[in-house]
């Protein structure tokens, strides 16, 4: 291809003007040596770390080959997906409902708890850093721990079952949602707040009438996003015994019932797609009506 361009009229023209072009755009024809060297060194370091990781984590051609062979053995066994009995289908559907309930309650609970906390973490609401700093640290630490870890901890407190899952989803989301909420609060337009202040409003009415109407649609759409992603995490929370469809999934994988596995995976895919669709519609409805300033 290069050859064709270079031989064509455009190429000839370009070559005739090469000296002029080089003079005009020196940084394109001969980029500074230093920046090139830095980019190359960074790429080299990234590649070296990658290769080291391969070696350290025990990758080898033999292992990959055997593994792929085994995958090739049992992927055909997944078809057609088949739950075998109606009783099983019913059981799976019930635990799917449980999964969605976990995601729903976890998200709602997290939003309800994160909202008041986020007020403390927002610079525009609480001026003093004495409250702000620890609240932010709390958000970061809580969201640094995965939902599954929280699930294990909650199982110790409330026992096995979906309730532990609800609490786990809730705890791990408080941090992330709180952070997002406080960012939304900080991005809110100050003019409305000043307006409320000018009519003699106190701090509570400043938040209630000056800030909340602006940020509510943003927060609602973030909560919907979290509901979508929580549906995904609620499907695996059962692996550690905190309710939902994950328990069946991990058990069917362990006993190598591949047709059941593929049936469960398809159930999950359909549910997640349905929830995404509904929540996308809702998000659009909420943001469509939102004032322009808040949507940004």
């Amino acid at each position, binding site marked *: 291809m290069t050859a064709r361009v270079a031989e064509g009229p455009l190429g000839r023209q370009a070559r005739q003007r090469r000296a002029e072009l080089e003079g005009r755009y020196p940084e394109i024809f001969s980029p500074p040596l230093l920046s090139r060297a830095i980019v190359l060194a960074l790429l080299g370091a990234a590649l070296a770390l990658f290769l080291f990781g391969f070696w350290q984590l025990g990758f080898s051609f033999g292992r990959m080959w055997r593994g792929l062979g085994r995958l090739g053995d049992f992927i055909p066994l997944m078809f057609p997906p088949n739950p075998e009995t109606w009783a099983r289908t019913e059981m799976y559907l019930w635990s799917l409902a449980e999964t969605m309930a976990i995601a729903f309650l976890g998200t709602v609970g997290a939003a309800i708890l994160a909202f008041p906390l986020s007020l403390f973490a927002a610079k525009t609401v609480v001026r003093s850093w004495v409250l702000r700093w620890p609240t932010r640290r709390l958000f970061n630490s809580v969201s640094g721990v995965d939902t599954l870890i929280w699930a294990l901890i909650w199982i110790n407190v409330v026992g096995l079952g979906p309730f532990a899952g609800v609490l786990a989803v809730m705890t791990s989301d408080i941090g992330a949602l709180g952070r997002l909420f406080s960012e939304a609060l900080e991005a809110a337009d100050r003019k409305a707040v000043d307006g409320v202040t000018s009519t003699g409003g106190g701090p509570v009415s400043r938040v209630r009438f000056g800030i909340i109407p602006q940020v509510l649609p943003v927060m609602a759409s973030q909560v919907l996003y979290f509901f979508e992603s929580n549906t995904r995490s609620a499907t695996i929370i059962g*692996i550690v015994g905190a309710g939902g469809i994950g328990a069946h999934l991990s058990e069917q994988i362990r006993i190598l019932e591949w047709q059941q596995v593929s049936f469960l995976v398809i159930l999950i895919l359909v549910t997640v797609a349905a929830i995404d669709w509904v929540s996308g519609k809702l998000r659009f409805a909420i943001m469509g009506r939102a004032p322009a300033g808040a949507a940004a």
Partner: protein
Amino acid sequence: MAQSLPRLSENRLSPLMDGYARALAARRARSLAYSAIFFVVTALAVLAAEVDLTKFFANIGNIGSYFDRILTLENGQRVWTDPAEWFWGWKPWGRLLLDTLLIAYVGTIIGAVAGFLLCFVASANLVANPWIRSSVRRLLEFSRTVPELVFALIFVIAFGLGPVPGVLALAIHTMGALGKQFYEVVENIDMKPVEGVSSTGASWAMTVRFAVVPQVLSGFLSYALVRFEVNVRGAAVMGFVGAGGIGQDLLEAIRKFYYSDVSALLVMIIATVVIIDLISERLRHRLLSMESAR
């Protein structure tokens, strides 16, 4: 102040007040309907999730006492009085944490490279054929919708216990997640350079290389960094299903009630995650400022 505004006469005020009341009533009714739906859904969810508040409140003291126990050493002292005893296993745990980071790193790189290669084929502005585009998109959707732990469970059976299945599971999930974000970036590029390069007779690959990649690279890098942060968290639990990293030790500590080990491991994981987040945030800000300087 209040006196300076003259009150409207009654016959002009009452239609305004009525209109306001009507508008308010309509809005109230709508909110009420929405809240009713919300409560019904919540009630159903409470039933399905076996939420038992009496059990919760009966056990609520357990939360405090659990944290009390994980912060107590075997000799009854608080953990921070004897850091050496608390972090007795810092050497093996540190090595496992490094493994965890490597799992996240290698998985992110493989997934990012795969997502990079696929995203151009999935972009509506570069590929006109809807069949190719939508089949690539379905593939990406599949790989990000199936939770990574499910891939890990399956790969553990195929590839054996250890970090290898964890890396592959993260890589597949990363490919799906990044591939989507990547093609969304590509679909928002300025098409003028593309037209310019293709008008010189360049092939599709050359157009992508010289007209698209320079526009999107910094955006891609910052998405990949965010994904790395997410994958560090994901890699920390891969051990729960036997797919390497620190998760295995954490699972054992929690299940076997090695209380002070639980807190030590949690502290190490949280510290690592927070440090990685900070570094990645710095890098992303630097990327952003480099982009705006250009």
